[in-house]
């Protein structure tokens, strides 16, 4: 539905805008009827009364410009060019719907035409549009991004953070607020201390305009100016369109508990379509367009919508067998050839790897058997470097080869990162790829989401994983679900990294272990490496895969050293490593606990106790097979994890083994977790809340007595 913006008679232009407004109106009216007939299974939020805004703005957009929208997004989808039949079919839950039946009214996706999604979460679209703007700027295109949102979004943190980021980075974005005066059913006059949305633009150094949202000509004019500004590098604009929805919040809902029938009827007289029609007929000096011509458009649209309805109703439902597809990348992209023996199937003979820990001192007389891969290189091609250096190398190498990668975080620019994660890279790649952020986690994570959706690969450096929690809605509701919601058509190549772990009196806001939380959600990869070798290999994998990865680094491991080959290599997700072979008991340990357990192994070996240590390396996906094979051998299982016990790694591993390995168990499964408490500050308290070497030793010996 792209509309030419070449110079033409104002009346001709307005005539062109008439048709898409009519399409939206008639489509919505059809959907309202369909809802009554029970053809729509979930919510249905119509756009009736607001058509002028979507049409007036989208008339300026090209197919490769990006639109991000809200729960009331039918009009935006149609105005961006979505065929009505795909919209109707989606609401009917059919395989031919624009989201292939995965979305419904609130999750419309058609990335092929730049419809980057409508969302059931208020405010997310603002950040994602800013992210798309970031991509377009980094990729040096003239594309623009548009966020359509209601007045309900403007008192939300996402509005503040998103507009501020767009302001300071001059992002090519239009923030279009459709102020229809109610956030669901709560009046804007009640919610806002400052009744002007447009005026708020000044806080962020942006131009702000207020416009009659029922006047398509006025909207078209202001949007045109904003789009030109964005395309030419002038940055973002906020446009507040004052309007009104004349149907209930959602079809089937009562409407007159919070507003009056008279008020609704009064607004219906200001219908943007009728207004446009009257204007066209009033000013048609030469008789063009005629009333009959506009009637002909109405009739033609009616025929189209009717055909679309029939198409949707005849379309098949999606195959239930596909209900869980598109959660992750279906077939991982082939990685570049690696000279090292990589993970190849099960039971492959690994060349011994030396997990060297603790400042280069080997704790074990090493015979680790690998969950598959071997690191066949020692000596000439393998140096000992720190964990921190290992991930830095991975990032630096990938950034050199992939200009779409950029890093965001607090102090990761010139300063090089609190943990030296980006040291020296600013000098090489400059501020656009090493982007210091204000302290606004929700803002820059939501922005990174939009960037990943539109062609770049963000690396978000949180410093401490505790800070991630401020952005967790963006991660779990948007980043994790995006591929699925879009039926596999939007990839989410994003790496979210931060330090976890208890130690050095960091206290409770700088020491959390949050991986069990994220491992509960489909769509995410959750990586928790324990050695420099694993850290580099998994970091590389994360920067090459098309799924979002949470890369969590235990802070107490950052300065530990270990062998890392010079050659390029990567480690696949979901492959545990047998760090040490043993026969009496299997210990599954993660991150710092791997090192502590290895220390215990040495002590116990002197007493004739042989411990097998398995490091899952990734908690999502979790490699149950390697653990089951080990328990088949040893008959005993202890899980050692610094994170909390309830619903955690121990519970998950224990459930897997007691299910699939029940007859292999010669003793109860034991878990050794951090105490179920926030992290205390004082060293004596801190020491008491994490599993220490003595605790692990006691737990193993106790288990052997079972």
């Amino acid at each position: 539905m792209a509309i030419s913006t070449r110079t033409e008679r104002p009346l001709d232009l307005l005539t062109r805008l008439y048709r898409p407004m009519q399409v939206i109106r008639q489509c919505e009216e059809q959907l309202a009827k369909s809802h009554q007939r029970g053809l729509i299974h979930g919510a249905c939020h119509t756009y009736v009364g607001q058509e002028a805004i979507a049409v007036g703005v989208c008339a300026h957009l090209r197919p490769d410009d990006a639109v991000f929208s809200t729960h009331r997004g039918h009009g935006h989808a149609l105005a961006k060019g979505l065929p009505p039949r795909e919209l109707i079919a989606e609401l009917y839950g059919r395989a031919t719907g624009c989201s292939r039946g995965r979305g419904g009214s609130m999750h419309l996706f058609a990335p092929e035409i730049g419809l980057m999604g409508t969302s059931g979460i208020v405010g997310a679209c603002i950040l994602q549009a800013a992210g798309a703007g970031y991509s377009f700027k980094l990729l040096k295109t003239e594309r623009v991004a548009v966020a359509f949102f209601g007045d309900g979004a403007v008192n939300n943190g996402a509005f503040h953070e998103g507009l501020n980021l767009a302001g300071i980075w001059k992002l090519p974005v239009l923030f279009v607020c459709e102020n229809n005066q109610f956030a669901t059913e709560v009046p804007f006059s009640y919610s806002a201390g400052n009744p002007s949305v447009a005026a708020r633009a000044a806080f962020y150094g942006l131009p702000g305009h207020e416009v009659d949202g029922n006047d398509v000509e006025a909207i078209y004019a202001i949007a045109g100016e904003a789009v030109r500004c964005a395309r030419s590098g002038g940055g973002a604009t906020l446009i507040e369109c004052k309007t009104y929805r004349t149907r209930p919040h959602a079809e089937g809902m009562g409407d007159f508990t919070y507003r009056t029938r008279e008020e609704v009827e009064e607004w219906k007289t200001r219908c943007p379509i009728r207004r446009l029609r009257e204007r066209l007929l009033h000013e048609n000096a030469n008789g063009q367009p005629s009333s009959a011509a506009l009637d002909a458009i109405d009739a033609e649209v009616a025929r189209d919508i009717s055909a679309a309805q029939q198409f949707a109703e005849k379309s098949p439902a999606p195959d239930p067998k596909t209900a869980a597809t598109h959660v992750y990348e279906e077939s991982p992209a082939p990685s570049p050839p690696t000279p090292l023996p990589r993970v190849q199937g099960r039971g492959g003979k690994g060349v011994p790897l030396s997990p060297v820990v603790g400042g280069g001192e080997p704790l074990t007389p090493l015979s680790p058997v690998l969950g598959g891969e071997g690191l066949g290189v020692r000596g000439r091609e393998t140096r000992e470097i720190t964990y921190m250096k290992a991930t830095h190398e991975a990032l630096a190498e990938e950034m050199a080869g992939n200009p779409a990668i950029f890093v965001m975080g607090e102090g990761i620019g010139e300063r090089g990162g609190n943990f030296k994660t980006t040291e020296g890279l600013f000098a090489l790649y400059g501020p656009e790829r090493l982007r210091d952020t204000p302290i606004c986690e929700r803002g820059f994570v939501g922005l990174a989401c939009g960037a990943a959706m539109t062609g770049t690969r963000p690396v978000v450096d949180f410093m401490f994983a505790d800070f991630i929690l401020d952005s967790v809605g963006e991660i779990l509701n948007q980043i994790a679900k995006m591929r699925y919601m879009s039926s596999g058509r939007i990839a989410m190549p994003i790496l979210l990294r931060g330090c976890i772990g208890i130690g050095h009196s960091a206290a409770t806001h700088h020491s959390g272990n949050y991986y069990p939380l994220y491992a509960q959600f489909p769509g995410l990869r959750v990586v928790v490496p324990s050695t420099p070798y694993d850290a580099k290999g998994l970091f590389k994998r994360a920067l090459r895969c098309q799924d979002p990865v949470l890369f969590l680094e235990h802070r107490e491991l950052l300065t530990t050293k270990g062998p890392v080959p010079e050659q390029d290599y990567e480690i696949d997700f979901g492959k545990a490593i047998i760090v040490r072979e043993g026969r009496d008991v299997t210990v599954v340990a993660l991150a710092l606990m791997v090192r502590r357990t290895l220390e215990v192994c040495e002590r116990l070996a002197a007493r004739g106790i042989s411990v097998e240590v398995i490091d899952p390396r990734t908690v999502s996906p979790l490699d149950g097979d390697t653990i089951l094979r080990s328990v088949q051998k040893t008959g005993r299982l202890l899980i050692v994890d610094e994170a909390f016990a309830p619903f955690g790694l121990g519970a998950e591993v224990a459930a897997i083994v007691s299910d699939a390995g029940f007859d292999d168990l010669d003793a109860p499964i034991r878990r050794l977790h951090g105490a179920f408490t926030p992290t205390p500050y004082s060293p004596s308290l801190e020491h008491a809340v994490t599993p220490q070497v003595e605790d692990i030793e006691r737990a193993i010996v106790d288990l052997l007595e079972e």
Partner: protein
Amino acid sequence: MATTIIVPRLGWSMEEGTFAGWLKVDGERIKPGDVLFVLESDKSAEEIESLDAGILRIPPDGPQPGDKVTVGQVLAHLLAEGEAVPEIHVEKTVEVASVVIAPPITSPTVQRKQAISPRARRVARELGIDCNGLTGSGRNGRIRERDIRAATAGSSGGRLIPHTNIRRTIAARMVAGVTQAAPVTLTTKFDATNLVALRNQFKAADEIIPSFTDLIVKLTAVALRQHPLLQAQWRDDGLFVPERIDIAVAVDTEAGLLVPVLRAVNNQTLRQIVAQSRELIEQTRAGRLSADQMRDATFTITNLGGVGIDAFTPILYLPQCAVLGVGRIVREPAVQGDRIVPRDMLTLSLTFDHRVVDGAPAAQFLQTLRICLEQPAPWLIA
């Protein structure tokens, strides 16, 4: 009051650093804010300022530039005028009780059977070990894998042939035959020369040739008619004596020993018996024998003569009273009058249930049977 100057922590996880050298000399007066020394961490080299005032006392054996120092290590002291360097107390790290073991949820105390781990149960099954009576070495006496292995020590290293249903049935019946009855075995050797000769006549006549077992079945029925108590069955309220004579014949198959039953032998001619027995053996070998065809025998004959056995102790097949074991036919020197002559000799082994009959009647049955076998012709046409 003396103040210690220690190695500070630079950054989050620094444990040790490199001492780069003093910027002040021993004995110098220090004000707060004066830069004292340079310390290098993994990240950077930092000039360390004094937070206190005093006269700097650097011990002569303190770290030299380039030495590794650990965080918290005492480098020097700031002293008041005339104050002496205090002795350094090494603080002992306090042992802290830890709370990390996820407490196993304690189950209510109930009287449980002998506990056994799933793995031990599996291994016991694989090795055919009965866990009853084993003592567990685990907590609260739980039987663990090692207890099962210990119970099989010495016999370990073999392979396990899983039980078939036939094997289990045979085992149960055999154990019952020994434990629930009072079995006694009698043996007797007889002259089978006539029996052999008789059979040769069938061969010469190109007739259907009865097997020795067929002949013995027929003649056993004759003997049983005279001694019906040998097929009486022990019941709690008395001895049940079946009217019909149904003789089971043990047949060795790959699946195990099977015992098809020849029905109503007392009413059948030898020819009928031969036909019936051939049909049954064929079905048995083909695995087509039904459970009905093995049920309710009143007497059993088992022949190990074909595999070179002379005498043995057959096991009763309850509720039958007796089982007859047939040995091989051996040509032996025998005394006939005053001459030593070669004769075909055969040993019979009869196991009977002493609850049902006593030794004398059982011996009399055996004697009758021997007479029939030594002079078979008259009895066969009966």
